[in-house]
């Protein structure tokens, strides 16, 4: 596939690895967080960590949409789906995300709730049109990439005067999460800077542009390199970060310049600004309540807000106490540090959200990384 294969070229990635190896200062450590689950997946899938010098460490961030959704919001969605008049439309990843006490939308569906997987918000609109007697609710989750498609669907529903379509909105914002990680006490308590730079998201940045990250470079002195999702993209971004650290620079650089501009997608941003507004705070799995990090529908679109139509009340539910998803999402622990990992918690029976989506740190490590753990154990 054009613009994909070129950036999956193994030879290119290996030569970049050589370049990184000769660029690093052996006395220095380089800890880079890839914020986005798409990068976590690419790093694991292509074994990029094995190509890096030992003093270059990748820390997985919280940018996996289903991972950061707290159990309480899943419980709320299950309650909604259990209403006899409701058809709940969800992205496939959400089906197995654990709510409290082993609940999931998949189990709710097995018990008879009308939960349907959709590929796109437009599929949910089509269901609402075809089944006017059903209350069709779209369970909206994700970062700046999935928010504009939800906005388009709400506008379409308003234009078509679809009285049986609403959205359960759980959209969250990338920059607020990055800020919370940078201010997290666990990261400060280490005594010195735990993170030496960020790989910025690919798809999110096509929408928001590079401009929102400028704050992190200025305020927190952190280098940020926006990177594409292919392995060569990630390797080039790591090289760019290494050079910034070596030079003592903290700038926003854009490796994914073929798709990302400074201003982002103006039309998509306008759609979102028209329909959504900031919540005072929103709870994230792993990060807790984060101020101004989530969106809700504006009053003008209240008719399409499931939380208002069904008078939904907030539920806060604890995660499985043995699950380390929280620390993993903050980058404080690695999947193999969790005693549930690979024992009771696998992608078949996830106990925590990080094991669900292919973008989750635990699922990526389970699929591609656990063999390396085994080799290391056998070698030692």
């Amino acid at each position, binding site marked *: *596939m*054009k*613009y*994909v*294969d*070129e950036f*999956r*070229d193994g*030879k*290119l990635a290996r*030569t*970049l690895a*050589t*370049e990184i190896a000769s660029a690093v200062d052996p006395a220095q450590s380089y800890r880079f967080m890839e914020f986005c689950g798409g990068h976590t997946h690419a790093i694991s899938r292509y074994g990029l960590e094995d190509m890096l010098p030992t003093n270059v460490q990748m820390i997985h961030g919280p940018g996996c949409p289903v991972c950061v959704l707290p159990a309480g919001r899943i419980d709320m969605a299950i309650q909604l789906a259990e209403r006899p008049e409701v058809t709940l439309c969800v*992205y496939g990843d959400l089906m197995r995300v654990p709510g409290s006490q082993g609940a999931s939308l998949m189990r709710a569906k097995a018990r008879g709730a009308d939960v349907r997987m959709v*590929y*796109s*918000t*437009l*599929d949910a609109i089509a269901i609402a049109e075809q089944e006017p007697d059903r209350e069709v609710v779209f369970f909206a989750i*994700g970062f700046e*990439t*999935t928010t*504009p*498609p939800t906005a*388009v669907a709400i506008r379409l529903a308003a234009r078509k005067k679809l009285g049986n379509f609403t959205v359960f909105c759980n959209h969250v914002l990338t920059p607020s999460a990055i800020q919370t990680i940078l201010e997290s006490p666990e990261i400060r308590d280490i005594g010195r800077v735990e993170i030496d730079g960020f790989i910025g998201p690919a*798809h999110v940045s*096509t*929408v928001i542009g590079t401009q929102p990250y400028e704050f992190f470079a200025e305020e927190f002195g952190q280098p940020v390199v926006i990177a594409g999702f292919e392995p*060569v993209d990630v390797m*080039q971004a790591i090289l760019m970060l290494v050079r910034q650290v070596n030079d003592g620079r903290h700038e926003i650089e854009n*490796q994914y*310049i*073929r*798709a*990302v501009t400074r201003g982002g*997608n103006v*039309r*998509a941003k306008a*759609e979102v600004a028209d329909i959504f507004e900031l919540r005072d705070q929103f709870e994230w799995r792993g990060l807790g309540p984060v101020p101004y990090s989530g969106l809700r529908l504006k009053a003008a679109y209240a008719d399409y807000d499931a939380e208002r139509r069904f008078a939904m009340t907030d539920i806060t539910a604890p995660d499985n106490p043995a699950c380390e998803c929280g620390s993993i999402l903050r980058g404080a622990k690695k999947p193999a540090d969790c005693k549930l990992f690979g024992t009771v918690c696998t992608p078949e029976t996830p106990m925590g959200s990080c094991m669900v989506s292919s973008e989750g740190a635990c699922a990526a490590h389970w699929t591609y990384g656990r063999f390396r753990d085994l080799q290391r154990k056998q070698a030692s």
Partner: protein
Amino acid sequence: MARVMLDGVGKVVSVALIEDLKVGDFVVIHVGYALTKIDPEEAERTLAILRELGVAQPEAAS
């Protein structure tokens, strides 16, 4: 709406979020929506930078 090809698989996606799209353009697809166009010149420039570093082969794998 527009028809896209993903490595031989055809799929109809929404192009409501982007402007000035022509048949033959390359786009980034996410949850059934085209999020942005891929700029062929910038893509080539990125590969050219790698080549200048002396790390890229003249022909990328296809």
